[in-house]
């Protein structure tokens, strides 16, 4: 039986604790705020001999992912972490990792992209990864970051796709909160032993030599991508399976999305990451005023939970889609387009409106989300009109 204890940790401390308990074989490290501190905590575990991890200090994020690719191909349980521009610099190798079907864990401590330079939170960095065929989870708080990392190892190795765990820079990474930890033995039993033969075709299985990263000419490239496409759709079932197994040891049951007060809701807000708690408080305040509103959180971002979203919105009149990144494309943010596409087969077509919020660490309050709900209600009732599908929620004009 798992023993649990509640402690006070920041998001980065909780993530480092998960890394210690998993005892990764290889961690590639390169500093960038707000991630630096995370690997700093983990480096102490390495220095104190509390883990067996081979910590590889590299000269940049592109190399960090290259080191992960090599280690994971060899059969090592592998992790790295970065943020913002570091993620951008690593993107080329993200495609290579997933194309080679390597289980790797990447922690994205979400940070804005330059210019202007900002070390603070938004989701622009993670949106660079959305088409890379990496599985992607968004954690709301330090507790979820800790849980997601434990589950990520298992999901990634079962699916043979790499996985990103996102948690918001500073807002989660540097804030203290209550975190319930599992004991080391329970975590070890859950993730299972490492060893090169837990994955198919390890490079270091020299009795069965294989080639990784070969060329594909026009006659085969499409087939490789098609296999990747087909297998990525199998990720849904694998994620669900691991979520179920995790519930047994932790008592916490995750789902692709989390619904709050959606049962009878006419207007529903959707967000990812740390803003969801604030969105729930906004829903409570509006409910106290008699408004029928609810909220949905995206936990599994890739592959996108389109069926779950369609179901959650099946009775809604209007939807507030909250994007913490802009696509600058005349349509709307990344999440907005995913939500809109998810309703393609729905009979009920709620009014969707997109709000860009929280860029570069802009503080988010309940009142701003309440205004977004009000705007959508007015649009839906025909009181307001709109020229664009997207607007900025918090801006000084």
């Amino acid at each position, binding site marked *: 039986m798992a023993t649990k204890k509640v402690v006070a940790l920041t998001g980065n401390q909780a993530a480092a604790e998960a890394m210690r308990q998993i005892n990764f074989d290889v961690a590639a490290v390169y500093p960038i705020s707000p991630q630096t501190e995370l690997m700093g905590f983990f480096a102490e575990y390495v220095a104190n001999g509390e883990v067996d991890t081979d910590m590889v200090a590299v000269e940049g994020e592109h190399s960090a992912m290259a080191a992960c690719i090599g280690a994971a191909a060899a059969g090592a349980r592998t992790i790295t972490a970065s943020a913002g521009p570091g993620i951008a610099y690593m993107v080329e190798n993200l495609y290579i990792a997933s194309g080679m079907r390597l289980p790797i864990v990447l922690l994205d401590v979400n940070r804005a992209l330059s210019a202007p330079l900002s070390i603070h939170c938004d989701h622009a960095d993670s949106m660079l990864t959305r088409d890379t065929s990496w599985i992607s989870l968004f954690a709301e708080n330090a507790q979820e970051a800790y849980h997601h990392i434990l589950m990520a190892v298992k999901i990634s190795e079962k699916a043979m796709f790499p996985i990103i765990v996102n948690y918001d820079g500073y807002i989660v990474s540097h*804030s203290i909160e209550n975190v319930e930890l599992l004991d080391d033995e329970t975590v070890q039993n859950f993730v299972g032993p490492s060893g090169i033969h837990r994955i198919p075709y390890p490079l270091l299985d020299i009795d069965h030599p294989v080639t990784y990263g070969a060329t594909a000419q026009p006659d085969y490239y499409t087939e490789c991508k098609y296999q990747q496409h087909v297998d990525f759709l199998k990720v849904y079932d694998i994620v669900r399976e691991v979520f179920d197994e995790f519930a047994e040891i932790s008592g916490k049951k995750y789902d692709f999305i989390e619904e709050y007060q959606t049962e009878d809701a006419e207007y529903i807000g959707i967000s990812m990451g740390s803003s969801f708690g604030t969105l729930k408080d906004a829903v409570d305040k509006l409910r106290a005023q008699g408004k029928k509103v609810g909220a949905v959180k995206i936990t599994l971002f890739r592959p996108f939970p389109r069926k779950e979203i369609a179901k959650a919105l099946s009775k809604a009149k209007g939807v507030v889609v909250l994007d913490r990144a802009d696509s600058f494309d005349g349509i709307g943010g990344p999440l907005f387009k995913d939500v809109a596409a998810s309703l393609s087969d729905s009979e009920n077509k709620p009014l969707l409106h997109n709000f860009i919020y929280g860029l570069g660490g802009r503080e988010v309050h309940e009142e701003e989300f309440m205004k977004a709900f009000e705007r959508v209600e007015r649009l839906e009732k025909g009181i307001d009109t709109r020229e664009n599908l997207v607007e900025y929620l918090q801006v000084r004009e």
Partner: protein
Amino acid sequence: MAVALNKPTIEVRWHGRGGQGTVTAAKMLSSAAIIRGKYGQAMPEFGLERSGTPVKVSTRISENPINTRAPVEEPDIVIITDPSLLFTIKDVIVKGTDENTIFIVNTNFPPEKVRQILGIPNNELWIVNASQIALDEFGRNIPNTAVLGAVAKATGIVDLDSLKQEITESFEASSKLRALLPQNLKALERGYNEVYKAD
């Protein structure tokens, strides 16, 4: 009990300067509450991470799980760890406060002067010369542990023993800070004993 403290969630806003341990103190305050079985949250507002620049931190202590990630805008308690901020950002310090807000100030000024600068003639005000305590005990102006003692005495939102436990655990975990633990525990107690409520 003061009106500001008679509610399930207490919201605290800290104002200090980078390098004086304000972020650490805010984290220790919520950690001390968490080890007593409450819910706690401490969210620093990071600027450019430079020593000496003003730092703002939000802390919440609650009987219930805390959902919001919004910074504290209407604090029940305002803590000022650097007295020079009274002259430079007083508008930021009093923003969102009302007559029930409790102020705890590290300063050697007389209370009348603090009241006058901040424009808080009737608020509950506690004064502690935490910088002097820190200088006495370990020769550096890092007033955070003395301020924490003052917060425990002034508000009771955490008790002195849980702060002792939290400070001991975090100092012992750090090779840099370990040697300074006894002095900081002394500063904590002095902050607790020397803080006084202004008329």
